[in-house]
Structure formats: structure tokens, C-alpha cells
């Protein structure tokens, strides 16, 4: 992708975005909601036309026929409520021009792999959230795509379902499939993606292997548990020299700092009697993102807030 631009009216979604996704990689597009991830995926499947710039997939310009080599798992549910599991797969096979015998045998194999073979005759409405996601993945894999686009594939899944889904994705990757994943789940991106691109307002602010990005950061992350409300402390710490990102969740603060030792010395000097526990953690991509953009990636849970650096 080169100099890709797209706008929704006055709001710029992609701003001269440039990106290379190597074949066979698990590539994460990491950014907060509205950073342009989903827009980029919708351009790749031809749903939207970029206002300017160029895109090529497998070295070829985008064309409907190219979509035969691309599978997609959408962010929102995308199953037909009037179809059974097997009918869903058969429909996909026909839409992708597969021979019926091959589609049928692949369906059996994939449903078996994602643990839905015994539910093949069930209507999609009777499946759990995790099962639906697995079916959507099996459907995306049916035609043997070389590239799979995944838009927040594990959103709203329980931990077991997440793990199961990732297991299947890793298998697909091992079979040579390129995975391009849009997510705002930092931990998932760090754990599973070989490469990530950090997006902000439709621009790539950094890209590379998660470990390399974090190495460049050279920050420590300190987690402090307080005996009472640390809101005022968090605000004060945000103004200290060497302090980056301060996140507040209940009575816990998560702080990135240039060096943990002088920071902790000062914290204990000023508020030592109110500290219950301290833990020095490895920095995350969230910290990298904060360092580069000045805000976080993941949507804040209830009660969580951020303190901007002074």
C-alpha cells in the first residue's frame, strides 16, 4: 500500500498510509477505534475505493477476481440466520467458484478442525458466540485463501474461545497463509503477531516486530497498588520528569518511566505509607504507542483513565 487516502466527509480515515505486509506473516494493525484499521481492510476487499494512492495484493492491483485468494472475518457477526452450519459453508464454496465435491470435503475437514462437525446440521442462530466465530473462520478458510483479513476477530470472546481461535489462526499461518489482523488488543498483538503497524489517524506511526519496537522504547513499566484512591498521586506523577504514560484503574496505577529506580525512590518518599504493592513489568506495545502518539490504544474499561504527561 502506498500513499493511501480515504475520508468520511471531512473526517480523514487514511492519511497517505504506506504499508508492506510480507507474505506468510501474521501482521497486526494496532490502533484505537477510528484509527483507520477497518477502513483499510474494507479497501482491500473492494468495499471502498481509496481516494488516492495504490494498493497491490500478491503483486497485483486490486480487482474482484483477486478476492478469490482472500478470506475475511468481519468484526461484526456475519452469518445468515436462516442457514445451517453446513449450508453456510456450501454457500461460501459456491460464491468462491469451488467444485461441489471439493467444497464438501473441505467443509468436513474444516468443521472437524474447528470443532463444529457435530453441529453441521444446526442453524447458525443456535451456536454460541465462540462457535459462530469459529464458523466464520472456517468459512474464510474454505476456499484456501493465501491472505486472510481479520477485523477484531476475538472481540467479545471468552478466554477459551480466544485461545481456540488463535490456535486455528496459527495453524493457517503455518500452512503458509498470510494473516492481516486489525485489533486494539495489545496483548494479543504482542503474543501472536510477528509484525505490527501502529496506526493513528490513518497514518502508520511505527512498524516492526513487537520486541524491536519495545526495545527502542527503553522504558520500564511500574504497577503500583495503593491502599486508597490514588487519583491525585497519578495526576502529580504525570508531571514528574522521566514519567511517560500514567494509567489509573481503581486503586492501581500503571506508569511507564525512563528508569524504575529513581521513580520508585520518589514514590516511596512521598507516599510510601499508602503503597500496598509494587511490581516492575515489561513494557507493552501500549506503552510504545503512548510514547509515540500520547494516548492509549485499547478502549478504557469502566473506572480506567489516563493521565497525560505534562
Amino acid at each position: 500500500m502506498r500513499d493511501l487516502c480515504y475520508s468520511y466527509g471531512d473526517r480523514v480515515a487514511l492519511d497517505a498510509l504506506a504499508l508492506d505486509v510480507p507474505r506468510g506473516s501474521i501482521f497486526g494493525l494496532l490502533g484505537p477505534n477510528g484509527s483507520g484499521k477497518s477502513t483499510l481492510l474494507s479497501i482491500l476487499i473492494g468495499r471502498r475505493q481509496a481516494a488516492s494512492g495504490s494498493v497491490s495484493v500478491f503483486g497485483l492491483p486490486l480487482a474482484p477476481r483477486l478476492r478469490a485468494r482472500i478470506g475475511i472475518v468481519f468484526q461484526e457477526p456475519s452469518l445468515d440466520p436462516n442457514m445451517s452450519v453446513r449450508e453456510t459453508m456450501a454457500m461460501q464454496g459456491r460464491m468462491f467458484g469451488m467444485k461441489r465435491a471439493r467444497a464438501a470435503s473441505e467443509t468436513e475437514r474444516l468443521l472437524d478442525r474447528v470443532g463444529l462437525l457435530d453441529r453441521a446440521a444446526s442453524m447458525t442462530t443456535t451456536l454460541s458466540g465462540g462457535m459462530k466465530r469459529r464458523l466464520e473462520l472456517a468459512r474464510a478458510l474454505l476456499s484456501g485463501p493465501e491472505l486472510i483479513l481479520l477485523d477484531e476477530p476475538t472481540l467479545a470472546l471468552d478466554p477459551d474461545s480466544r485461545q481456540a481461535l488463535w490456535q486455528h489462526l496459527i495453524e493457517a499461518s503455518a500452512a503458509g497463509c498470510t494473516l492481516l489482523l486489525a485489533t486494539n488488543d495489545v496483548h494479543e498483538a504482542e503474543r501472536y503477531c510477528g509484525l505490527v503497524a501502529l496506526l493513528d489517524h490513518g497514518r502508520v506511526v511505527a512498524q516492526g516486530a513487537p520486541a524491536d519496537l519495545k526495545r527502542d522504547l527503553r522504558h520500564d513499566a511500574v504497577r503500583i497498588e495503593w491502599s486508597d484512591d490514588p487519583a491525585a498521586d497519578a495526576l502529580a506523577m504525570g508531571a514528574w520528569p522521566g514519567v511517560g504514560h500514567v494509567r489509573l484503574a481503581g486503586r492501581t496505577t500503571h506508569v511507564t518511566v525512563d528508569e524504575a529506580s529513581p521513580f520508585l525512590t520518589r514514590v516511596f518518599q512521598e507516599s510510601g505509607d499508602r503503597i500496598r504493592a509494587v511490581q516492575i513489568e515489561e513494557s507493552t506495545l501500549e506503552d510504545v504507542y503512548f510514547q509515540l502518539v500520547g494516548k492509549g490504544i485499547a478502549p478504557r474499561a469502566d473506572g480506567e483513565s489516563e493521565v497525560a504527561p505534562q
Partner: protein
Amino acid sequence: MMQQLDAVLALVTRDLRSFARSRSQLYSSVLFPLMLLAILGTGVSEGLDPKNIHDYVTFLTPGMIAMTTVFSSTFSSASYYQDRDSGILKVFLASPHSPRIVLLGKTLSAVIIGAAQGVIVLAVASAIPAIHFQWQYGVLPSLLLSIFAIVLLNFFLSGLGQLLASKIRSMQGFHLVMNLVLFPFLFFSGAFFPLDRLPEWLKILGRLNPLSYGVDMMHLALYADGRSGYFGLPLDLAVLTLLAVAVFYFGTSRAVSPDQ
């Protein structure tokens, strides 16, 4: 080409299967016009005793068939919104086919469902003793002509449904507009009363109304015992065919907004 045809066929099969599984839609779409035929037809012919219309129940039958196609094509076109809301439309549009193939499959299925319902009403009506079809061109030619009229009407209405769907974001709005547009059209199409004795301004509206030509074709095939009809068969065929082809073409060629 074969892959595109198979994709269209797959989409049509899927919509037909969904329709067959929706028993309430299946039964109500056939029972409602028959019920109206029995109640309105008997009520008007016995209660009002219209002097100008010989055998009102038989006269009303082509109108009820036209009404069936109006309702069924509206419901079938609305399945576009159901597919959009369930997310499956995005999946179809992410296939290697152009949006036009997807719209063609969906619109053709609406045509088939609407035509099948119209033909069922026609078949049931022809078996009712109180309805006396004239079959003035002979039974088979008249039957084929009325089926042709039903099919043309459905091509026109399903295409119109797609055109409206490109402009209207919500299914509720779509139903509202379809009813607002098509219900009045039904009333001055000759479905409920003959156009030839209406005031001039209603006659003009009747001439501008595409449904009038379909109803007239069916009146010629099933009811009339003279050959002329209101517009005459050549004009009915010419206008309805032209409209059906044009509206179906533009309806299936419309752009599919990524946000709709």
C-alpha cells in the same frame, strides 16, 4: 461466466430456501389476497351491486393477483435489509463477484418468489366455482399471458425495490415508501374498479401507472370477453416489457454503498 451464473443461482436458491422456511410469510402472502377476494368481492358484488361490472369477483381476481405481486416483491426486496443487518451481505460482496452479480441474484429471487405467489393465487382462484375466467384467447394462451404479466410485474416491482433500497437506509423507511408509492398505484390501476368510467384526472393517473398495464393484461387474459381491454394487448405488452426490463436493469446496476 459459469462461476458467475453459479453464484447467481446460489443466491437465488438461498433466498428461496429462506422464504420456504418462513412459513408465516408463505401462507399469509397467498391467503391474504384470497381472503380479500372472498370478502371484498362478495361484499361489493352483493352489498353494492355494481351495475357497470359484470361478475365483480372475477373482475377483482386479476387485481388481487397484482396486489399479491406488489406485497411479495416488497417483502422480498426488503430481504436486502435483513441481509445487510445480519452481515451476510458483506460476505457476499467480499466474494470474487461484482456487486451487480449479488444484486442480480437477490432481485431474481424476489421475482421468482413474487411470480410464484401470483401464480398460486391464480391457480387457487381458477379452482373457485364463484370465479368464472373467460380465457378469451383459449385456456393455455390466456394462462400463459397472465403468467407473463405476473412475471413482468415482478421484474418491474423487484427492480423498483432495489432502486428504492439504494436510496433508503432503513427497512422501516423502505416499507413505508413502498406502501406509500404502491398502494395508491394499486387503487388507480384498474385492480378494484374499471378505469374507463373514472374522471379524466384519474384516467390520466391510470395511464401513467405501470401497474395498470399489468392489470389490463390480466383482465384481457382472464376476465374480458371482448379483445380490446382498456389499453389493448399490444400497448400493455410494449409498456410493461419496456418498464420491466429498464427498471430491473437499473435496479440491479445500482451502486451498493459500503455504509448501507
